[in-house]
């Protein structure tokens, strides 16, 4: 063994599989189903300064190869996350966790990152500058290189732990935004957040989602995410967490060949709560089939 190990921003992972923020809660729902310590790590539910209910229902719509969500960053807020969720998480997960934060201003990002940076179990900060489901929120920062750089520099100034900027694909040129994050001091980038999409109910002629539009995720996002990871890898030197439609060990390996150091599993956790576990268990067999001795060695191999 040892063949699955990777290092993400200086922190070793037993394997590259990271359930993505928003599909894994704060971990303990899944800890009832299996030992989540088999994961590389996971990114917990996007946390904001204030508690948020999120958007009105319905906020889920099915697609032919995936789903649209418009949750809108429902979470109990930073105070309760630190006071209640992290202690519960600590009981079931004994590795560094990725703390996902969402903000509505640079000051909020700064405050959230500074506070979570102090939490012992937090290994990385994943800074969501790409939520498609909140107005005037992080999305606008992630839409331009300048906005992305501003948040990156501000959170880097108040943190000691690696900051990974989570990027939206709903832009003209994701590469320029990733570069701006790198230049501003980011330790890594994660991509992609969901693709902005919608569905219309033919019985009513109205959007299915109450908020009209939402973020598409699922297997159809995979080739798009893969392409973006490949392009970003060619342009930046910081590690990439590749996210988008990953549903199998084969997808993980493909994402790593494109340039990902670690790989997010998102929507697949919703369809099969054991999906991340199955992918990890399947990796050695698939590596053997393709003659891969070490995952670390294939990162960016397709470049």
């Amino acid at each position, binding site marked *: 063994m040892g063949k699955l190990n990777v290092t993400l921003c200086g922190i070793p992972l037993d394997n590259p599989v990271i359930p993505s923020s928003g599909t894994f809660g704060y971990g303990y729902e899944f800890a009832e189903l299996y030992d989540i310590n088999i994961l590389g790590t996971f990114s917990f539910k996007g946390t904001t300064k204030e508690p948020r209910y999120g958007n009105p229902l319905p906020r*889920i719509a099915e697609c032919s190869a995936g789903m649209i*969500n418009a949750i809108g960053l429902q979470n109990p807020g930073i105070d309760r996350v630190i006071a209640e969720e992290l202690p519960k998480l600590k009981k079931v997960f004994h590795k560094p966790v990725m703390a996902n934060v969402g903000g509505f201003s640079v000051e909020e990002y700064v405050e959230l990152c500074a506070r979570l940076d102090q939490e012992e179990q937090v290994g990385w900060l994943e800074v969501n500058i790409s939520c498609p489901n909140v107005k005037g929120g992080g999305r606008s920062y992630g839409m331009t290189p300048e906005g992305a750089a501003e948040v990156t520099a501000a959170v880097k100034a108040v943190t000691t732990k690696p900051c990974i900027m989570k990027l939206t694909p709903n832009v003209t040129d994701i590469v320029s935004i990733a570069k701006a994050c790198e230049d501003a001091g980011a330790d890594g980038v994660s991509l992609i957040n969901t693709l902005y999409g919608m569905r219309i109910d033919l019985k009513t002629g109205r959007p299915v989602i109450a908020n009209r539009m939402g973020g598409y995720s699922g297997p159809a996002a995979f080739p798009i995410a893969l392409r973006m990871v490949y392009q970003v890898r060619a342009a930046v030197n910081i590690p990439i967490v590749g996210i988008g439609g990953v549903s199998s060990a084969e997808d993980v390996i493909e994402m790593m060949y494109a340039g990902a150091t670690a790989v997010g599993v998102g929507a697949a956790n*919703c*369809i099969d709560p054991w999906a991340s576990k199955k992918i990890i268990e399947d990796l050695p067999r698939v590596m053997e089939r393709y003659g891969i001795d070490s995952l670390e060695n294939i990162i960016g191999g397709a470049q």
Partner: protein
Amino acid sequence: MKQEILTVLSNDALTKSVYRMRLEGDLSSFTRPGQFCNLLVPGFYLRRPISVCDIEGDVLTLLYKVIGHGTEAMADMTPGTKLDVLCGLGNGYDTSLSGKAPLLLGGGVGIPPLYGLAKALLAEGKEVCAVLGFNTAEEIFWADEFRACGVSVTVTTADGSAGVGGFVTDAMPGSYSYFYTCGPVPMLRAVYEKTFTSGQFSFEARMGCGFGACMGCSMKTADGGYKRVCREGPIFYKEEIVWES
């Protein structure tokens, strides 16, 4: 929650659009009436959450309405089909609060979970009364099954073609100790307004996961917080409910 492979034993139409599917397998993760299962229908990305009508030994009965492509595909399933099903989801009804003479109020395809509940209440020695609402006489299903268990049943039809003309709230008895209800939201709101005791409401929602991970189905609650229909629900106490306009 457990993931089980269940085998379809039978799948028959009860009305033009309501079907009964009986499935066999390990149902040990279901602990209360009013829980649901989440079925993976081949060819569809998200699972289909369907409330449990009845469990007898290792046989699960689901009554479902064909409303879209996913349930159309379910209606075409033949005996012997194996299905990937997440079992034992949701909180289920609490029978301990029912008092001696609980009232069940069901509308359309909201009726099925009340059947398993009725059986549980009867087994506890309660006197169970049910008002079951349908649009028309042709759409009536499962009323006789309730009667066969010993439930005192009143049927209503919106068009007056059978039973009492009107809605379930037009045929409620004068006295009852508690109530349990499931049905379309306008009916639930009417029940909320016209009942004079405490009670429990079963909600449905478009769900992403069905087990609490995605937050797709959260409903606001009266304490200013929220509960996930799939996890802390689908049963909500009357006192918790906040009606969104």
